[in-house]
Structure formats: structure tokens, C-alpha cells
């Protein structure tokens, strides 16, 4: 036998061709073409002693461990098996051709000379992706997902979300670091709504701008393997928002809508090696994060232009009703503004309004003050009245009378708004017991 080196084409001839082949000759050829090709063989000339079932002289062709035929005879002969223009194509890259001649070529005592054969072979690209061309030793298709043929070979690829494995054939879901940064979108379990694959370790991360709150809306169907007694023992859909556990879900009851109050959400989907549930799909949207509605701590607090909803970067201003001071702890505030922060909290807590207290009224020399209101105190709007020690002093006011009111500014002011207290001036020339002459 003679191996034919891995060329892309060539020819093989019977011994002595084009002269008659010798008797008692056995020749064979192993045609080998590069991998990724098949062997295509055609006979250009074929002239072998015809015999019933090609018993005497013949050419036998084998490929892929299969016998492709035993051929003999002449073109047009009634006996034998002339290959004609038949194309012999291997499934692999090898083809074996054997030539046999017996001890004689006589017909009724006449020696007849047969010239043998001339065959031409060429390497033909194998479409490995054709399911009909599956390798003999393989059980399934060459590629788990998508097969791409090229001259001399093929390669596999995977559908989106899957990754070609090291065997260059199989695809596995790659969902360990899915990142979503759009303001809204969809995410789902692999193959949804078809059953999800086994052994998943999917991690979907939604990362939006600070101050946005992600809202998750679960679509139907929602189906994750579960157990009636044990909570999510097989497959789990875990949702976290900035490290805060929101929930672990399975079963057929959809979680519905989840307002995460976070701009960072992680969805972890873990599956075991079995199951036939259809998975889940989430439509996520986002909105500016909400802050709690501000609530006054007391009836004297005024929230300016109160809005029905406060979101990130919104703010509100607090004032007090006239006569009340803004207080935070023991500290008096000149103003108060609270801003809604990215985490949905107010950057400072609500102050309270405390009634304005005036200092103790200034003592009046040679006079007194009395509280007009009851109970007597120095709170806003309290009224005092100054009086002089009559009849020895008389009161002199600054134009606003002797009544003073505790003002919103925390000072005692008269009716003219002035803070100077009256004065008690001496009364002259009014003795208690003036001299009186009774005797005339």
C-alpha cells in the first residue's frame, strides 16, 4: 500500500497504467487530506476484468470504516460493477482504495489486456455544521448552540448570555456579573420563559445615579423551584439593595412590585442541578428617591409651601408662627432648611417651635410692674403694666403708655414699639399733711 500524503488533490493509478495491469497484483492507497476536509474520489478511466460480483479483479473503496463498494468491468459491460462517474465521498479525511488482480485475464482462451484505472481525488471542505455530517463518534451536534463552518474546519459560538466552554463545544450561561446602568430595563432568568438551566450563579447588578430609587416589577410567569415546608431549599432569587437584604423569593407567587429605595440593587439567582421551572422576569424602572413627608412637631411650626411628595434634592423650609423661636435642642436657630438626601433621608431633623420668652421685665425705680395676663409669665404676648409709687411719684412714659407686651423678638415693648421703660418722677409740692390754719 502506499499512503497518499495529505495533499488537497491528486490521482492514483492502477499498476502500469495506462498499460495493462499485471496479474496477481494487490495494491492499495490511503488517501489522507487535512482535517476538516473529506475525500472526493472520481474515476477518470476504469477498465478492469469484468466478473460476476467482481470476483476476479476489482477495486474496493473504504472510508469511515465503511465499504463504499467493489468495482470492476468496463464502461458499458453487462457484467461487473463499473463505477461510471460516481463520486465517492468520505465522511472523514481518509479514504482507502484497494486494487486486486487474479492470476489471468482470459476469455475463452484469449488473453485480454485490461488497462486498469485512473482516479482523481480532491479534498472537499466538510460542512461540519450540517447535522448530517456529524462525527461518527459523537452523540450530538458539534456545537451546543451555534455552529460556524469554514473551509477546513468549523467553530462554535453561544447565544447571548452564554459563554463557550473550554471544550469549544458547549455553552454555559454567563450571568455572574450582569450590569445594568440604564434608567429602566428588563432582566430575566436565562431562557425565560423557558425553564432556566441548572447550576446557575447569576448576579445581576443595577447601578443607577445617586438619588434614584429602583423599582422592581415582576412579570408573569414567575416560577422558581420551591418546597412546601422549607423556604427556598433548591433555587433562590435573592434581592439586595446596597447590602440590605430585601428578600429571598421562590415558588409561583410573584413578589409583585418592590420599591427598593436604593440606586444600587443586586439580584442573585442560584439554582441547583435539577428542576423545570420557567424562571422570572423583572421590569425595572427608577424614580428620584422619596424622602419621608415632613411632619411638624408642634402646632406652631410652619412648613413653607408644603409639597405632596419630596424627592431627592427637594428641600423644605420651616418657620415658626409669630412669637415662636425655631429650636434644635437648646440651640436657637435663625432659619431652617432640610434637603432630601440621596439615601432618602432628610439631612437634618425637624426642629421645634418654642414660644418666645422675654427676659424678666426691667425693674422700675420707685415703681412696680404687674402682669396683666394670668398666669403671670414672660411668654410672647404677655402684658405687664408699670406703675409708680403714687402719690410720691408720677409715671412718665415715652409715648407708648405704661403697658408693655412681650414682642416676637423677645423684648418688652410699649404700644409705640419702644423698649424704654417709663420713669417715675417725683411729685413735688404735695405734702401728705399740709399745714392748715383752722383758728381764724
Amino acid at each position: 500500500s502506499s499512503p497518499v500524503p495529505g495533499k488537497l488533490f491528486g490521482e492514483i493509478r492502477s499498476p502500469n497504467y495506462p498499460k495493462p495491469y499485471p496479474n496477481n497484483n494487490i495494491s492499495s492507497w490511503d488517501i489522507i487530506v487535512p482535517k476538516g476536509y473529506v475525500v472526493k474520489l472520481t474515476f477518470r478511466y476504469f477498465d478492469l476484468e469484468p466478473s460476476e460480483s467482481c470476483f476476479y479483479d476489482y477495486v474496493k473503496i473504504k472510508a469511515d470504516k465503511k465499504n463504499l463498494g467493489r468495482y470492476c468491468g468496463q464502461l458499458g459491460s453487462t457484467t461487473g460493477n463499473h463505477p461510471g462517474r460516481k463520486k465517492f465521498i468520505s465522511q472523514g479525511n481518509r479514504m482507502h482504495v484497494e486494487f486486486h488482480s487474479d492470476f489471468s485475464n482470459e476469455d475463452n482462451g484469449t488473453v485480454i489486456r485490461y488497462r486498469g484505472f485512473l482516479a482523481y481525488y480532491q479534498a472537499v471542505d466538510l460542512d461540519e455544521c450540517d447535522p448530517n455530517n456529524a462525527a461518527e463518534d459523537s452523540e450530538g451536534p458539534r456545537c451546543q448552540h451555534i455552529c460556524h463552518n469554514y473551509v477546513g474546519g468549523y467553530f462554535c459560538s453561544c447565544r447571548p448570555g452564554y459563554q463557550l466552554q473550554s471544550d469549544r463545544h458547549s455553552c454555559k450561561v454567563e450571568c455572574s456579573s450582569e450590569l445594568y446602568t440604564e434608567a429602566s430595563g428588563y432582566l430575566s432568568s436565562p431562557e425565560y420563559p423557558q425553564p432556566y438551566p441548572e447550576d446557575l450563579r447569576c448576579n445581576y447588578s443595577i447601578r443607577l445615579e445617586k438619588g434614584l430609587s429602583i423599582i422592581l416589577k415582576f412579570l408573569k410567569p414567575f416560577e422558581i423551584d420551591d418546597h412546601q415546608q422549607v423556604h427556598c431549599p433548591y433555587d433562590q432569587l435573592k434581592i439586595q439593595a446596597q447590602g440590605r437584604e430585601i428578600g429571598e423569593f421562590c415558588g409561583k407567587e410573584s413578589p409583585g412590585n418592590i420599591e427598593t429605595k436604593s440606586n444600587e440593587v443586586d439580584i442573585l439567582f442560584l439554582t441547583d442541578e435539577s428542576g423545570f421551572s420557567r424562571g422570572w422576569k423583572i421590569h425595572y424602572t427608577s424614580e428620584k428617591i422619596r424622602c419621608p413627608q415632613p411632619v411638624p412637631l408642634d402646632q406652631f411650626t410652619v412648613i413653607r409651601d408644603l409639597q405632596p411628595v419630596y424627592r431627592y434634592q427637594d428641600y423644605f423650609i420651616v418657620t415658626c408662627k409669630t412669637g415662636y423661636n425655631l429650636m434644635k435642642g437648646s440651640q436657637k436657630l435663625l432659619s431652617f432648611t432640610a434637603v432630601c438626601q440621596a439615601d432618602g433621608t432628610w439631612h437634618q431633623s425637624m426642629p421645634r417651635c418654642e414660644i418666645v420668652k422675654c427676659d424678666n421685665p426691667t425693674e422700675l425705680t420707685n415703681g412696680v410692674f404687674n402682669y396683666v395676663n394670668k398666669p403671670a409669665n414672660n411668654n410672647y404676648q404677655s402684658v405687664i403694666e408699670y406703675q409708680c409709687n403714687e402719690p410720691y411719684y408720677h409715671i412718665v412714659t415715652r409715648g407708648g403708655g405704661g403697658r408693655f407686651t412681650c414682642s416676637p423678638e423677645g423684648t418688652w415693648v410699649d404700644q409705640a414699639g419702644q423698649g424704654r421703660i417709663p420713669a417715675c418722677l417725683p411729685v413735688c409740692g404735695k405734702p401728705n399733711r399740709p399745714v392748715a390754719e383752722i383758728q381764724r
Partner: protein
Amino acid sequence: ILGGKQANRGSFPWQALTGIHGRGGGALLGDRWILTAAHTILPKASGGNDISLDQLAEEANVFLGHTDVDELHKMGNHPVRRIFIHPDYNPKDEHNFNGDIALLELKHPVTLGPDVLPICLPDTTNNTFYMDGHMGYVSGFGVEKNFLSNHLKYVNLPAVSREKCQSWLDSKSRQMPMVFSENMFCAGFLTVKRDTCQGDSGSVFTVLDSGSGRWVATGVVSWGIGCAQGYGFYTKVLNYVDWIKGIIREDT
């Protein structure tokens, strides 16, 4: 006071007892001013020029609030902050008491009450208080029958017309050539033994202003030739109201 009566408490609540160069009187103005006679501070021919007013203020004693001298002393002294003497007063001229008026400023205002009350100053547009025969009252702790009184006395005296005063004074001129200026008036009697006397100096001659019902100081006990031997002479407060108010207002 000669020929007078013992004053009840509350009748002359403005009356001050002073002790500077001896007993004198004064009247409370407002709650921290004492109106008195300049010569109680700088007596005539006393050579007191050597002592400053500040020193005199430091040494001056003022008592208020009672009719009994001992009780007054018990009640305590009202220290004097400053002394204002009218610039017309000349302590070297023994025969001229023109400008015999002064103000003592107390260090601390006094608390007014039934026994301590100020006297009013006259209205500068009203000269009727000085008309002949207009009765007034003078109180004081001065000499009575050659003894200093231990109790406040008072006497009521009529104002006397300038002509009568001058005429009487002229008759005494050989004995005592005293100056009777426009800033003085005289009051009293020629024959009736009712008069002020030594120790009453600085006390005030008061009249009741019937219009306002208030007692008004029209004069300051100043000088006289003897006691109850003719008219007594008083500094005419009306002429010094502007000076007084000027000092008090400026200080206030």
C-alpha cells in the same frame, strides 16, 4: 423760727437739715437735689476760700425725712456728690447776699414717701407769689428763743412789697448797710415777733399755688437784721429757676 409752731410730720416733707458750717436748712428738689442758701456753704467772711467745694461736699451732712433732729440723725446722713453755688454769690461781701442760692447734689437719690417729698419751683411767668401780703410758710430747725430747735418749726409770713422792704432797710442803713437786690424779697412783720432766724438759712419760703394745689418754693432763707426785729430777707427763687433747671437738667 420765732413765733412759729411745731411742724407735724408730713407737712414740710421737703425740709432738709444741713450741717456744713453749722446748722442750716434746705429743700428737696426732685429726688437728689437740695436747694439751699449759698452762705450756708460759704459763709460770709469766713475765710472759707481755702476749702474746695469738693472737700465741702465730702464733709457736708444732709438729713431728710423727719421733724425731729435726733431722729433725723438716727436716720442717717445723705452724702453729697457735688455743690453748685450761684456765680453771683460773693462770700467776701458781707453786706451783699445777692445770689445767695446753691444746689447740693446727693450721691444717691432718695426714696420719696410721706416724710420725704420735693417742693416745686415757681412758674417763671407768675410773679403773684411775691405781691405784698401774699402769705407763705417758712419751716426750719433754726434758733428759737436763743436755742437751736430740736424740732422742726414753721411760721407763716406775708411777703412784703419791695418799697416797704427798701424803706425799712433804708432806716437801718446806718446800722447795717445791706444791699437789697432784685434777686431778693422780704417777708415778715415789723412788730409781730414771727420770723426766721439763724439756723433756718437755706430753708425755703413756700406758698400754696391754689391753681395747681401744689406748694411752691418762692424764697430761700437768706439774711436779716436780727431776728423778729423787722423783715426777713429771702433769695427770690423765681429769678433763679433757669439756673436751677439748667444745672439739674444738664446733670440729669
